[in-house]
């Protein structure tokens, strides 16, 4: 038996999660091969590395190529791409596919469900088994040994290339985006008015961050919807999140659960946001925020 690992790489550098998938595969099967597309990645510790020149983004074509190698076990990283390619490959080979696997032994797999909050024991019935490995479920173990590189040219159907890269567009707008900013200072209804955001702008500027807002603020027309943090706005994951005058409705919290530290400024000590805040200042936003900026200015002077 051989386990075939679909390796994702950028310019030959193997993705960290694919290294995890390789480690997983070596633990699952004695005989491991790899397959990669659009270049020859620096893979070690596998017998054969199959490479095909299908460039760009072509999940269905990649899957067809994988299927053409007639594998019995296919492993990939549990990335969006890994899951997509293996779903196609499973359909093509008539195999069974388990996503986000954390452990596997023969037919028995343990996999994550519901965003990792549950573990499911499952059994893979089928001649071809496909698995993606849940991110960070396995610690990378380096293995030595240069593989034999085996170029191959799979026979593709026209339909396999329906999804392909037509154009690459840079999404960054020049400035710092809400989704990627290291610091976000958000205002809620407690800011009181559109003008009230001036002090938040100032604070965000001094901290190298950007300003966000709650849904109530967008509804009131104080800020554009593009500034909205929350379930129906932008999901953020800054190092520091400073919600000002935001009570912390579920819809808002769903958008900022990725924040590493949360400093809440709110006049209501009972506000739900206090339950999640790492630090809190109880008081009027319009007094507290200028006081913080004044102090920052003093310290930095």
């Amino acid at each position, binding site marked *: 038996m051989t386990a075939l690992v679909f390796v994702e790489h950028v310019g030959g550098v193997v993705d960290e999660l694919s290294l995890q998938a390789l480690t997983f595969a070596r633990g699952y099967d004695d005989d491991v091969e790899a397959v990669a597309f659009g270049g020859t990645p620096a893979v070690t510790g596998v017998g054969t590395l199959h490479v095909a020149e299908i460039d760009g983004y072509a999940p269905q074509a990649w899957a067809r190529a994988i299927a053409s190698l007639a594998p019995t076990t296919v492993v990939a990283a549990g990335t969006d791409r890994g899951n997509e390619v293996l779903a196609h490959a499973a359909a093509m080979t008539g195999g069974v596919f388990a996503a986000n696997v954390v452990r596997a032994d023969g037919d028995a797999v343990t996999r994550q469900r*519901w*965003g990792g*909050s*549950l573990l499911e024991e499952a059994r893979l019935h089928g001649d071809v088994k496909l698995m993606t490995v849940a991110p960070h479920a396995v610690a990378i173990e380096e293995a030595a040994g240069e593989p034999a590189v085996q170029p191959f040219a799979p026979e593709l159907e026209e339909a396999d290339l329906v999804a392909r890269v037509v154009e690459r567009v840079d999404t960054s707008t020049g400035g710092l985006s809400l989704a990627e900013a290291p610091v976000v200072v958000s205002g809620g*209804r407690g800011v009181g008015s559109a003008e009230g955001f001036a002090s938040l702008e100032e604070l965000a500027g001094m901290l190298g961050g950007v300003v966000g807002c709650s*849904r*109530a603020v*967008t*509804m*009131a027309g104080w800020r554009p*919807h593009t500034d909205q943090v929350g*379930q*129906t*706005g932008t*999901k953020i994951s800054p190092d520091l999140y400073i919600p000002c005058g935001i009570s*912390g*409705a*579920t*819809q808002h*919290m*769903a958008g900022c*659960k990725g924040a590493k530290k949360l400093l809440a400024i709110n006049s209501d000590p009972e506000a*739900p946001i206090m*339950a999640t805040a790492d630090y809190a200042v109880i008081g009027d936003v319009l007094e507290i925020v200028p006081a913080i900026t004044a102090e920052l200015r003093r310290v930095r002077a």
Partner: protein
Amino acid sequence: MIASALALAAAVAVAGALFARRVLLLGRLVRMARPPGIDRTDDVPDRVRAEAVVVLGQRKLLQRLVPGLMHAFIFWAFIVLFPAIFIAMIEIVAPDSAPQWGWYDALSDAFCVLALIGVATAFYIRKVLRPRRFAGSHLGEADLILAWIAAIVTTLLLLHATDARVFAWAHVLLILGFLAYLPHSKHLHIATAAINVYFGRTRARGRLEPLRFDEDAPEEDLRFGIGSVKDLTWKQMMDAFSCTECGRCQDACPAYATGKVLSPKLVVMGVRDHLFAEGPKALAAGEEYDGPAVASHGQLEEMVWDCVTCGACVQACPVNIEQIDHIVDLRRHLVMVESRFPAEAEPMLRDVERQGNPWGKPQAERAGWAEGLDVRVLEPGDPVPEYLYWVGCAASYDERAREGARSTAKLLLAAGVDFAILGPLEACTGDPARRMGNEFVFQAYAEQNVETLNETGVTKIVASCPHCFNTLANEYPDFGGRYEVVHHTELLAELVRDGRLSPAKGEQEITYHDSCYLARHNDVRAEPRELAAAVGTPVEMDRREERTFCCGAGGAHMWMEENAGAINEERVREAAATGAGTLAVACPFCTVMLDDGVRSRGDDLRVVDLATLLAEATDT
């Protein structure tokens, strides 16, 4: 005499041919249609009752007294005067053998007068009052039809008064002309409304039609909502044929009332116009037909996303058009086939699919709301409780909605009810995904939850969330889950009635906001009021019970943005106008939406679940 007979026969033949040609086309369209997802031929006694009440009794029309009577006069006259057509024909062919029924002439004269009063009232409404519900309707066509009806009854009155054959001719020719014109106009409802009423939902009105895409599904049942005109069900076609553009649905629609693009009337008219434009092409092309999506007609695609599935339109429609089925089916195609829907709803769909709840909260924290309460979390193999308390995602995770769940649990404990929760085994029912149009995700959850519930062996469920309640009670039977489901207000009211809970009546004035999925879709109206009356003084809003006004959260709108006026603020405005200090609710979505509305308007109004009011008034 023979000349008259021949002339009459020719007129009948021409009118009949014009009528038949159109009706044959309609018939061919209906034969092309897909079967609806639910059985619409069962419950015969209920369907017959609907004919008696809704058609003959005009009950849904009479929800508005003056326009209702106006229509009822004309409709009843139409029934009473039906034999007069044939009597007038005999008058033309053989005047001597025409029946001489004095009593019938007198009766029909009376109904002619009623019809004329009806027509006059209709013109008064249309020309003087000019209600907003007619915006977008074909007004000229309506004027023509009304004038035509007036002419028909006037000629009959003149015939009775003078016995002159010219009026018999005029009467008959007007009717034959009307017959030929009828199926080409919105007045087609004369022929189709009674049929449409018969096939309308008789019970479980909140139940959506399930789609079948399992492997065993017969090819002809395979359907992903409404793509092209070939995907319409015959009920949807009958709906389209039956619309008279009266606009009662538009008037009741909370999205329309707050300035959205959506008008349920324009949705049905859009489907109808598209059907008449594309249907003949689809018939001609057969299997080869590859026409445009129904959603691409006019503004339909834009409109369907404004709907909160509150059902006010369905409730208001005098001919049992089921607008929600059209809207959800159009959404289904857009979501599942074209993957085109408002971007802000995407996180919700993803979180329901992957995390089992629409906010992406950890499943392990599902029972967190019950911390400190002695609530039993059901494990496989445990003894079966009398009631399973289905908490729902909102009451499990949302800070404001949790209070209602805590209160409910405290009360059930105080009353000694044997109940348990599923905790981490409970998942989203799939309702928001389903109403958004993602039937795949819904059915996956339906099957999973039914399996979980059936494994526990529970037979009775009490649900906090009216949306869960509706799904569990009305939709899970389609997936093998049959339970006796009650809403927490029903169970609590029963406990109060039985003396197992003894709340102290307070002074506070309470206005109760009916949740659409309780009051309208599921007829739970009395019990919440019993609870309000048990703890305070109820004050009613104008739009209440089955005519309630949505909070704005239904149909997955809890996770979408308002793109015009805010429905929740409009509802809070009405609640605040009652002067009550407490706005009682019975739904976690209503709790959040209306509380948001109060905050943004700055009203001095406490939004609180009835369970919490009851818990405060009870020594728990």
